């Protein structure tokens, strides 16, 4: 540890950084780069998404009608709301309103859970009907060639997104614990800010998934 800093050396400042601003900005840049990798990861699935509907426009149109637009819309509202509460949680800690921040985090978690519950109902309905990806597909009500391709794409994209919702929930939970322990404040709230960025990206991806899967023309 270097002892020749003449201003207070905050406990959260790592030894290889010279000041908190450098550390905070570095964390933010690192998180944005990580989000960039997530964009490219989901991007691969978006490529599959553009290629297959372009080859089978009628089948995709017919297949998508079997998705429940109302549940999809509900989930969109739920996830957007969770983004709002996450942003407000960060705003509250910026203003040192720790208890308010904690409450917003809890609501965010509940909304995320609600999203997964709705997805659970959607998935179990499809499993029940045999609308499954690839070789597990047994449903017979959709016109067009290879209707299972739509469900392969649907489960791959919403499944990967769901995994990210779960991961996001764990991270939010961890940040919640740290806030309750008093480790975050207006002076240092980087972990919550970074979690927020991640959560907003999860929301953004759903903002695109929703029309592409549920609202095809």
């Amino acid at each position, binding site marked *: 540890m270097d002892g*020749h*800093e*003449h*201003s207070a050396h905050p406990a959260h400042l790592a030894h290889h950084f*010279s*000041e908190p*601003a*450098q550390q*905070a*900005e570095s964390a*933010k*840049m690192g998180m*944005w*780069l990580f*989000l*960039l990798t997530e*964009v*490219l990861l989901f*991007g*691969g699935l*978006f*490529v599959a998404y*553009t*290629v297959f509907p*372009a*080859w089978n426009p009628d089948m995709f149109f017919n297949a998508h009608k079997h998705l429940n*637009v109302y549940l999809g*819309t509900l989930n*969109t*509202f739920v996830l*957007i*709301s969770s*983004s*709002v509460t*996450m*942003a*407000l949680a960060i*705003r509250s800690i*910026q*203003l040192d309103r720790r208890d308010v921040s904690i409450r917003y985090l809890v609501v965010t978690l509940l909304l995320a859970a609600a999203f997964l519950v709705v997805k659970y109902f959607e998935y179990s309905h499809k499993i029940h009907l045999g609308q499954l990806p690839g070789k597990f597909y047994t449903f017979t009500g959709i016109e067009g060639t290879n209707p299972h391709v739509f469900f392969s794409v649907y489960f791959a994209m919403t499944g990967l997104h769901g995994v990210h919702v779960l991961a996001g929930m764990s991270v939010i939970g961890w940040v919640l614990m740290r806030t309750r322990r008093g480790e975050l404040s*207006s002076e240092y709230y980087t972990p919550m800010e970074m979690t*927020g*960025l991640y959560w*907003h*990206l999860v*929301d*953004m991806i759903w*903002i*695109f998934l*929703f*029309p*592409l899967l*549920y*609202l*095809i*023309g």
Partner: protein
Amino acid sequence: MHMSQQNKTNTPHVLPLQVYLGTAAALFVLTVVTVMVSFVDLGGWNIVVALAVASVKAAAVGLIFMHLWFDRKVFLVIFLAGIVFLTIFIGLTMLDTMRRGDIYQISADPIHKNAAMYDTTAVTTDTIPAAADSTHSAANEK
């Protein structure tokens, strides 16, 4: 103790509550709009409108909730880089997937034989033909 130029940052920018609530309201309204538009048949334009609305919503989340509008530009550049390269990926891949059948048209076209070597008219090699000599004008078979 050194203060590096590259680490200047604003003191944390606390946005007013109205900005968050206003953005949230806009997102809800746009969601309703996009669902309602999907019930109207616009043909090929449905997907365009849906993606346009989604892009506006995503921009709102990115610029306001994720603070890209208020932070240093480098973070916006990083995010947009992802979009740019994703576009390259999708675009060049579709150049392949959407134009696979072209080769059948190309190989179905007859071969154009304009080169002199295909000219089957008898040629005398000891005299140079006069300029106006019609035997060697380009007798184009098609």
